[in-house]
């Protein structure tokens, strides 16, 4: 991970009355697997389409490899896109699909032939040259779409929710496939998804977006464990997000009870949000933890049980491998380093994050 390959500078884009991107800044380093993550309408796809050249920003520049490509048409850009619905050319064979870009660049027959072989091998579909796209399964079609893109040796591969149309099992297989591909090819991936699991599994860097603004940039671990605001916390995994007061450094008052924590620098008696992941809550016998409560719901989820515990007028979401039947009296305990403190939003821009989508 070295220098900046792509740099979005002050990008704004509006459709009619709706502002999709507002003064958007982001850079992507070479060989990075960067994921734009957010709910639909957050501007992630628009960002990708601006980079692909299918949309022109109203303001701002896109710098690619040191050159301004803002006004360059898509066919002149050194990057390739894998579209959400594959967008294979249905009237061409698989081989013709893969050869499409190479033929336009007037590569030799032998070169094209070798490239097709190589690409099909790469996506584990050798021998499919003469099939027609609609005789392939969804996962196979998606891999062909990837093969078609990578034979052109792009510096960046853009993937627009490529796994969105696949079923769960296939989606998981494809995630590993993509990681492998990225390692073998050694190129930059810009990945767009609304699926947090995909983002967490594959990315080097995740950019969480909402309503045209970047909420947080970080590694999957950082995003998951230390969400910077309630939106990120809520969007990535399930969480208990509770209004609280920072009494002093390393001490936060949640629902009227003081909890020791590890965060500092929020000042004294300042309102904050705290995030506690459901799997970080330990259920003890009544009186042994910080707050006593009673189990109100119980669902078996396979890996764990999901429970809701009513304590101090708040419904705590708890994941545990131990089962506590509904009605059981329990006590809640949270380790200090499992309490994530977040600043309350102050400006209007930041307010956006609290609006439920």
């Amino acid at each position, binding site marked *: 991970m070295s220098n900046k390959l792509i740099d979005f500078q002050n990008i704004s884009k509006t459709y009619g009355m709706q502002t999709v991107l507002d003064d958007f800044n982001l850079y992507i380093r070479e060989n990075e697997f960067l994921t734009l993550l957010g709910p639909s309408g957050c501007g992630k796809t628009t960002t990708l389409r601006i980079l*692909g*050249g*299918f949309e022109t920003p109203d303001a701002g520049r896109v710098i690619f490899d040191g050159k301004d490509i803002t006004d360059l*048409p*898509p*066919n002149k850009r050194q990057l*390739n*896109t894998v*579209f*959400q*619905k594959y*967008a*294979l*050319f*249905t*009237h061409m*064979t698989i081989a013709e699909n893969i050869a*499409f*870009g190479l033929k*336009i*660049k007037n590569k030799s027959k032998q070169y094209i032939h070798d490239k097709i072989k190589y690409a099909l091998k790469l996506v584990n579909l050798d021998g499919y040259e*003469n*099939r*027609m796209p*609609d*005789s392939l399964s969804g996962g196979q079609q998606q891999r062909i*779409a990837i093969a*078609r*893109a990578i034979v*052109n040796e792009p510096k960046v591969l853009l993937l627009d929710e490529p796994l969105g149309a696949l079923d769960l099992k296939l989606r998981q297989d494809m995630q590993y496939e993509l990681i492998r591909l990225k390692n073998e090819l050694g190129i930059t991936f810009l990945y767009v998804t609304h699926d947090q699991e995909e983002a967490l599994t594959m990315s080097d860097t995740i950019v969480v977006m909402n309503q045209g603004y970047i909420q947080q940039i970080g590694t999957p671990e950082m995003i998951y464990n230390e969400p910077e605001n309630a939106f990120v916390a809520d969007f990535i995994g399930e969480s208990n997000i509770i209004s609280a007061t920072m009494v002093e450094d390393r001490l936060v008052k949640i629902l009227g009870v003081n909890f020791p924590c590890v965060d500092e620098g929020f000042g004294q008696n300042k309102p904050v949000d705290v995030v506690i992941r459901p799997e970080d809550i330990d259920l003890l016998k009544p009186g042994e933890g910080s707050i006593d409560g009673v189990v109100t719901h119980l669902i078996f989820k396979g890996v764990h049980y999901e429970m809701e515990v009513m304590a101090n007028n708040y419904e705590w979401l708890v994941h545990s491998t131990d089962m506590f039947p509904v009605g059981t009296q329990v006590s809640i305990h949270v380790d200090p380093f499992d309490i994530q403190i977040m600043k309350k939003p102050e400006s209007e821009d930041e307010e956006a994050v609290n609006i439920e989508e």
Partner: protein
Amino acid sequence: MIRKFLQKLYLALIFIILYAPIVTLMVLSFNQSKTRAKWGGFTLKWYKELFQNEQIMSAFYTTLIISFVAAAAATLIGTAAAIAIQGMKQRWRTFYMGVTNIPMMNAEIVMGVSLMLLFIAFRMKMGFGTILIAHITFNIPYVILSVAPKLKQTNRHVYEAALDLGASPLEAFFKVVFPDIVPGVMSGFMLAFTMSLDDFVITHFTKGPGIDTLSTKIYTEVRKGIKPEIYALSTIMFVTVLVLLILINYSPEEKEDTKTKKKRAKKPSKVKKILLRRVIPVTICVLFLFGGFYYSRESNVMNSDKVVVYNWGEYLDPEVLTMFEEETGIDVVYEEFETNEILYPKISSGAIAYDVICPSDYMIQRMIKNDLLAEINFDNIPNIKNIGKDYMEQSRQFDPENKYSVPYCWGTVGILYNKTMVKEPVTSWSILWDEKYKDNILMQDSVRDAFGVTLKYLGYSLNSTDLDELTEARDLLIEQKPLVQAYVIDQVRDKMIGNEAAIGVIYSGEAIYTQMENPDLEYVIPEEGSNIWIDSWVIPKNAENKENGEKFINFLCRPDIALKNFEYITYSTPNVEARKLIEDDAVRNSKIAFPDLSQYENLETFQYMGTEADQTYGELWNQVKSH
């Protein structure tokens, strides 16, 4: 069981209703006899004659070429338009789709007339070009309508994917988007092609002299009866379309087949490929070669010395035209019309400058009255001496000074009866009201003919405008109604030949022909008098080659030429010298073809009576028909 049987019966009925007419037509195309009423044995002669009939074949090629070029141009424009509309914002898209649909909803006649007016306003010469423009215009909406849904279906990302892979927008369109919408484009083309192929109304209003499509050509033949050659042509066309349809439908079936066997490699089927890459292009090339050959031959003879003739359909031996061209070096531009009423607006609008036209008596009177005709310089028509004095006298009824017209064909209206069914001598119109012949009487389905007969029977003029006389005639017609088998036009001929009725009101020209087919038939002009009709050559005021027109009329008055035309048309000729040349005694002395006019004092031509009287007649006729 019963339900299944009924289902099958229903289906069978639908098929019978759909295909019975076509089967009838196909059978008739092999009928030796020229009339529909009789089976004269199996023959292929109509097919042979079809390919030798230059007029039909040239109309056929014109039709194919216009349809093909119009469909191709409309496909090009329509597809481009559909793409543009697809790219618009929703609001505009709805608006433009609505606008394109209007010409399709519009009545064809409105479209035809407005196009004609437009062409006249721009002073365009009516002909191949104007028909083509008109056809392209009305074809475009059909193309848009069949391409637009295909475009809507295409995945927008497919186009972007092609751009993304380095294709320029144009490359992306042709390599990726176009193959996806090809079915829509093809069906748009086919739709446009068929719409053009059988269009009559719009073609009729936008065509000029010297050009006919199949539909207009067939329609001009209505007056004299559609020729069996047309049955043959229709059969060939039907079979061709059927074969093409089977071929086209055969290939997708194969495609389905491979689709189900997913494991197998799948390529576009061979049949389809051969069809697309070989058969269709070759057919098109052959078509163009023929067409090109035909047109180059046509255009070779185009020179400035010409005469533009507008005549009834099938109302002149085509050989006569060739002879005239060879003898005089003047080119004939020949166009045909079907009724006087269609002829009139074309002349009065002055859209096309005809040099010689052939209206009927009352229409000539109307044209003289409206100052549409030029006085003929009879110095240029010395052959006028061959026209019998009687006919010049009769012509005075509509051309009082014999200044504007030269008689060409004439005839009477009378009674045709079957001697085996009517034993008594027929002398009066009264037989049409005789209860004995209930359901055996055929009347002409036309206002003037029906009233003319009745007025004559009552002893009045057949041009009467006296309301009392007309009301009396109406009541008599209503009284007659239960006796009448049918009110028909053409079918009098066929039904009488087929012994389907005993008595019919008919024109003498047809009577000659029916008698040849069925010797039991006899024609008589009732003693109360009847209608005599004369079709004469006249020259419109806006003629550009008046002298050539006069040369043409003079040529037609030559005895040998008049004879040729008489033999072709079989309607009575006023040319006495020509009559003398008729070889067959029976025909030359036929009482039907050449009744002694001096015997009948009460023969009248129809007169133009003005719109008011026309309306009165129309209303009274409606009362009869709806009674």
